[in-house]
C-alpha cells in the first residue's frame, strides 16, 4: 500500500465545494487578468490599431521600432528608472524613520500614527490636485515656507530639473503604508536582544545597527520590492499633474504606453512597450532578490 490516503466521499465533496467557492475568483483571474496578459503578448506582435479593420502579424517589428526609432522610449525609461529608484529609496528611509518615531512611547501615539497614515487614504487624484497647489511657485505653501526661512523658491513641477524631485517628495508624503508595515516589524523585535546589546556596553546606534536592522531586514526587503514595482508603474502624476512635461521631463513609461494605446490608438505597439516594461521590472526584481540574499536574515532560517 502506498502512503497516499484514500479520499473519503466526504472529503471529495468538500474539495468540490472548495473549488466551487473559489471558482468566481479563479474565473475572474483567468478572464480579466491572465486573458488580457496573453492577449497583449499576442497583440505586441501585430500592428493592431483599434480603428483599423485589419490586424497583421508583423513579428518583432514593434520591438525593433521601439529600440531603433521611438523618440520617447529612452527618455521614458530613464525618467522612470530615475524616479523608481530615487523615490523607493527615499520612501524607505522616510517610512523607517517615521516607524521608529511611531514606535516610541510618546504622548498621543495613536494620533501620530493616524496622521502619518492619513495620506494613504486620500484618493490619488485628490492628492495630486492638492499637491499641485502646494507646488505652486507663486502662492504654494512649499515656496511660502522656503521664503519664510529666506531660502530661494523653487519652480517645483514646472521645471525640468525639479519635476522628478518634486514628485519624489510627493511619494514620501504617502509613505504611511510602508511605515505601518515597518512598525509591525519593529514591535516584533525581542527586547532581550536589545538589552543584551546594552549590557555589552552598546548604545542606541549599536542596537539599531546590530539588532533592529537585521531583524526587520525581511520587511525592508518586502517594502523595497513592492515600492519599486509600484514606482515603475507611476502614472497618475504624469496624467494629472504634468502631462509628461515640461519638455518630457516627467514622461513616465506607463504614461507613454497610455498615450500610444489610447490617444494614438496603437494597441499593438503599446502592448510591445508594456512587455518591455514587464521584462525590465522582472530583471530588476531578480537582481534585487539575488542582492537580498546577502543582507536579508530570516529568523530561524538559513
Amino acid at each position, binding site marked *: 500500500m502506498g502512503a497516499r490516503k484514500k479520499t473519503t466521499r466526504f472529503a471529495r465533496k468538500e474539495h468540490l465545494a472548495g473549488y466551487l467557492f473559489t471558482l468566481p475568483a479563479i474565473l475572474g483571474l483567468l478572464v480579466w487578468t491572465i486573458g488580457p496578459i496573453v492577449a497583449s503578448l499576442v497583440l505586441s506582435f501585430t500592428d493592431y490599431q483599434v480603428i483599423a479593420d485589419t490586424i497583421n502579424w508583423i513579428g518583432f517589428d514593434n520591438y525593433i521600432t521601439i529600440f531603433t526609432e521611438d523618440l520617447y522610449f529612452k527618455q521614458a525609461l530613464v525618467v522612470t528608472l530615475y524616479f523608481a529608484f530615487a523615490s523607493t529609496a527615499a520612501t524607505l528611509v522616510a517610512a523607517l524613520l517615521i516607524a521608529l518615531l511611531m514606535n516610541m512611547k510618546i504622548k498621543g501615539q495613536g494620533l501620530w500614527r493616524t496622521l502619518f497614515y492619513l495620506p494613504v487614504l486620500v484618493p490619488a487624484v485628490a492628492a495630486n490636485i492638492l499637491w499641485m497647489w502646494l507646488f505652486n511657485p507663486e502662492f504654494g505653501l512649499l515656496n511660502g515656507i522656503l521664503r519664510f526661512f529666506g531660502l530661494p523658491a523653487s519652480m517645483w513641477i514646472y521645471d525640468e530639473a525639479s519635476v522628478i524631485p518634486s514628485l519624489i517628495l510627493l511619494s514620501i508624503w504617502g509613505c504611511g503604508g510602508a511605515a505601518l508595515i515597518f512598525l509591525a516589524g519593529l514591535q516584533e523585535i525581542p527586547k532581550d536582544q536589545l538589552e543584551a546589546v546594552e549590557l555589552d556596553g552598546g548604545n542606541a546606534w549599536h542596537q539599531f545597527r546590530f539588532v533592529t536592522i537585521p531583524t526587520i531586514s525581511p520587511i525592508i526587503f518586502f517594502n523595497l520590492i513592492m515600492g519599486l514595482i509600484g514606482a515603475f508603474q507611476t502614472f497618475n502624476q504624469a496624467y494629472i499633474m504634468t502631462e509628461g512635461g515640461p*519638455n518630457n521631463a516627467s514622461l513616465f513609461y506607463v504614461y507613454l504606453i497610455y498615450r500610444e494605446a489610447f490617444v494614438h490608438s496603437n494597441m499593438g505597439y503599446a502592448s510591445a512597450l508594456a512587455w518591455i516594461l514587464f521584462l525590465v521590472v522582472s530583471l530588476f526584481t531578480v537582481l534585487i532578490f539575488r542582492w537580498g540574499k546577502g543582507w536579508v536574515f530570516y529568523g530561524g532560517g538559513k
Partner: protein
Amino acid sequence: MKGLLKDACHVVTLLAAFSCSGCLFASVGTNDPVELRFTYWGGPLEREAVETLIATFNNEHPGIQVRAQLVPINSYVEKMNVMAASKTLPDVGYFPEGSLYPWVENGMLRDLTPLLTGDEANEKLDYTLYQFHDGPIAGGSVANEVINIYYNKQLFAEAGVELPPTKAEEAWSWDEFVEVAKMLTVDRNGRRANEPGFDENRIETYGVSNFTGWIDSFLFSNGGGFVDETGKQLLIDQPESIEVLQHVADLMYVHHVMPKPSDLSTVPATDTALLTKRVAMAVDGQWAMQELGRASVKDGLDFGIGVLPYFEQPATTNYGTPIVAFETGKEGEHRQAVDTFLTYIMDPENVLMLIHEGLWMPNETAWYEDREKIERWIDTPIHPPEYEEAVVDWAKDYVVQNPNYFWDDRQKAGDIISPALDQLWLNNKTAEEVVLDDIMPRMKRQFGDKYE
C-alpha cells in the same frame, strides 16, 4: 414552508415581469423612432445649451430621437477608441480636431462632402471644412471661432490708454501692443511695467493673458506657421516663425507683461481674470464671449473686443470643433436620420440660441455678408457694439485656415513641438535653439524625408 413557497412565487413573477418588459423593448416596431447617439464635450453652460438644442430637435422630429452623451474632453479620444474596440461608437459626435486624421485614414468617418457642400443656400465657410489631401470631407466645424483680444475697459481708462482697434486696417503693430501691455501691467505697489522701480515678481495685473496656446495667428501674421497651407512644407524653422516665438516669450521674460507658465495657476479663466483685474487683455477665442457675456450681465464687467496686433499683416486663425458621422455600418433610415440631425445642427438658424449666448459663431458665408442675418446674429445684450468690425469682418476677411483642418501629422508633430516649446516658455532656451536643436532633428527622425 408555505412562506418559502410564497417567496419563490414572488421571485418567479418578478422575473417573468422583467423578461416580458425585455420582450416589449426588444420588439421594435417599424413606426418607432430611429435612435441616434451623439457625443460631445463642454462646460456646464455648453452642456445646458446643447441639451436644450437636442430636446428641441427631438420635439421637431418625432421620427428621430437623439440621445446626447457628454464625454470629458480630456478623455474623449480614449473613450472613442474604447467604443470603437467594442463596436459601440456613437452615430454622430464632436471630435478633437488634432486627432482626426487617423480616423479619416482608416475610414472610420463618413464622407460628408454631399451634405456640407451640396446645399448652395447654406454654403459653409470654406475654412471650416476638414479635408486632408483632397480626400473626403471628414467633418465641418459645428461653429466657427476666431481669435481676438478681450479687455476690461475700466483698466484702459485707469491707465489712460486708447482702447484696442476694432478694424483690422488699424490694428496695433507688435511694438505698439507691447507698449500698451506695459502700461496695463501693474505691480502690487501700483507701479506700471514701463515705470522705474516696477517689481516684476509681484504683479497684480498682467497686461495680457498667457496665449502660448494660441500663437498660430501671430505666426501667420508674420508669414510663418507650423506648416504651410498644403501641409507638405514645414514653416516652423523659418526665421519668420522663430521671430514670433521669441517675441511671445519676451512678453514674459523681457517685458514682464504676461504670466509665466508657473504663474498660470494664479490666473483664473478669462471672464474671472478680466473681472478681478488679474489681466487687462486676454487673447482668446470667440467662445470666451459666453462666459464674458454672463459676467457683463451678472457682475457688471465692462468688456470690449479688439482685433489682434500684427507683424507683417493682420491675421487671425480659426478653430471649431468638427462634427463627424461615424461609420457604424448602419444604412438606410438610420443614415437618413444622421443626415437630418447633421443638417439641423450645422444650420446656424437652428443653433441661434448658442450663437446669441456668445458660444458659437455661424459657420455659413451668408451670415457674414447678409445684413439681416448679421443683425439677427449680433443684436443681443452681450455682443458689444464693436463686435461687427472686430469679429464678423475680421472672421470674413482675415482668417488663415488653421492646420488642424488639413495637416495629417498634426498630432504626432504636436507631441514633438509642444514639449520642446516648454523650454522656450520656461526661458531655458531661445526660440532659435528650441526650433533648430530640438524640434527639427526630432521631426526629421519622426517623419524622415517627408518634409524635405
